[in-house]
């Protein structure tokens, strides 16, 4: 075997793929230029911002279901980050979990109240203020059971640099600095109403579809999101090199990091109707020794975010997601 043998195995990507990806990159560029509004800093996809600035709002999501993310954040891109559950347990044991890190700095400006039940997607749309999409594909014996709408929520978070610094010291993150000027900065988050449609099979819930418009996040000028992002990733347990590369390669203004327990979950980046998203699969051990499979699909489209969560087959879940009209 010679070098030429090894080199001869190179192949050109298929022209169809090359064109498709190039087109996707152009679309990405367009949507990014539309989203850029640096003066006002009214930025979609706030999850990362809030996670980083005030100390890891993402952490509870490691254990939460996907809809918990949706209830708090909406995004343009989803990127899954494998996280060691042992790391999360350690953070909680040292009072470095989000309730302890940021609980005293979150002010609720508008309470969403309890979800309100409605009788049709049209009524949900009226209550939520947008046209609700409904899956045109329903697996056999699966029927729409309930629809409810959770009201708008507004929050204000205030950065506590000292608390974040303490967390970093506790975790022996000594090579990074909390960015100057962070302390006391406020972030306002408006989370518009969320519509949830629950589907049942034989009386048992099997899948739910959530949708909402993009929230608005107002940031003070001058916040170095990449630097804060790197700190957040380190706290989540990424290595210094991984965190640095990751922080510098993603667009923090439009990307939601979805922490995924690495041991119990698998994930992949996907496209649903041409839009980037994340598919997450989970396996839960049951008391009788059996296993329960569930999955979630998260994506955004035209200023809205969507989630499909449930225990149906991956194929049925994906077909439902792609059939939303």
């Amino acid at each position: 075997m010679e070098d030429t043998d090894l080199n001869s195995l190179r192949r050109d990507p298929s022209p169809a793929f090359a064109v498709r990806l190039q087109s996707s990159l152009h679309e990405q560029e367009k949507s990014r230029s539309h989203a850029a509004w640096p003066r006002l800093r009214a930025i979609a996809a706030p999850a990362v911002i809030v996670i980083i600035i005030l100390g890891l709002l993402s952490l509870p999501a490691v254990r939460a279901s996907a809809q918990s993310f949706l209830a708090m954040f909406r995004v343009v891109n989803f990127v899954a980050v494998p996280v060691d559950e042992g790391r999360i347990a350690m953070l909680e044991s040292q009072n470095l979990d989000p309730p302890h890190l940021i609980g005293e700095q979150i002010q609720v400006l508008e309470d969403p109240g309890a979800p309100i039940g409605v009788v049709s997607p049209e009524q949900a749309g009226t209550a939520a203020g947008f046209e609700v999409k409904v899956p045109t594909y329903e697996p056999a014996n699966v029927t729409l059971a309930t629809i409810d709408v959770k009201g708008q929520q507004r929050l204000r978070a205030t950065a506590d640099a000292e608390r974040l610094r303490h967390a970093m010291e506790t975790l022996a993150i000594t090579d990074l600095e909390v960015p100057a000027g962070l302390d006391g900065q406020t972030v306002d988050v408006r989370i518009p109403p969320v519509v949830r449609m629950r589907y049942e099979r034989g009386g048992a819930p099997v899948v739910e579809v959530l949708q909402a418009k993009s929230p608005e996040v107002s940031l003070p000028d001058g916040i170095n999101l990449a630097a804060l992002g790197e700190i957040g990733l380190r706290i989540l347990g990424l290595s210094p090199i991984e965190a640095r590369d990751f922080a510098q390669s993603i667009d923090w203004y439009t990307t939601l990091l979805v922490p995924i327990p690495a041991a119990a979950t698998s994930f992949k980046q996907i496209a649903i109707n041409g839009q980037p998203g994340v598919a997450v699969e989970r396996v839960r051990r049951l008391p009788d020794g059996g296993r329960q499979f569930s999955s979630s699909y998260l994506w955004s489209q035209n200023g809205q975010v969507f989630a499909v969560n449930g225990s149906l087959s991956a194929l049925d879940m994906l077909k439902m997601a792609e059939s939303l009209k």
Partner: protein
Amino acid sequence: MPGRLARWISAADPDWDAVYADQLPRVYNFFRYRFGATADAEDLTARTFEKAWRARHRYRRDLAAFSTWLLSIARNVAADHVRARRPFVSLEQASDVRAAGTPEEQAVRNSDGERLAALLQQLPDRERELLAMKYGAGMTNRTIAIATGLSESNVGTIVHRAVQTLRARW
């Protein structure tokens, strides 16, 4: 705007479509060599470019650095893929390769390719990654050394050893 300044800005801004066309096969083949038929090279390539494209303007004056940086993102994507061990990545797409030549030549090439891919999968992870960078992405030992933090001579030694192993098993 003064004409000279406009021309200067224009000259400093590369033709990104041309850069894309140049870099796409490198990244795609990096993943093909790295994972063979066990992963979707198109999916991993797309993820790499989507990450890189947002920040590419940082490299408008140094496309060599851009190329190295792009491969560093590809390596991270590869590491994520290994870590996640995603069981539901399409395997069919990974084997969807196209090559020129007669059907007979194609059959021989596919056969050799499958055999080599299988041998590559038996190599240690680091050796496989360096071979993917060298033969898949077409990097020199020097640029691999820069990208990995290894010395150039160390890169040469590891690559040589890996190729010797492949030859012995061929």
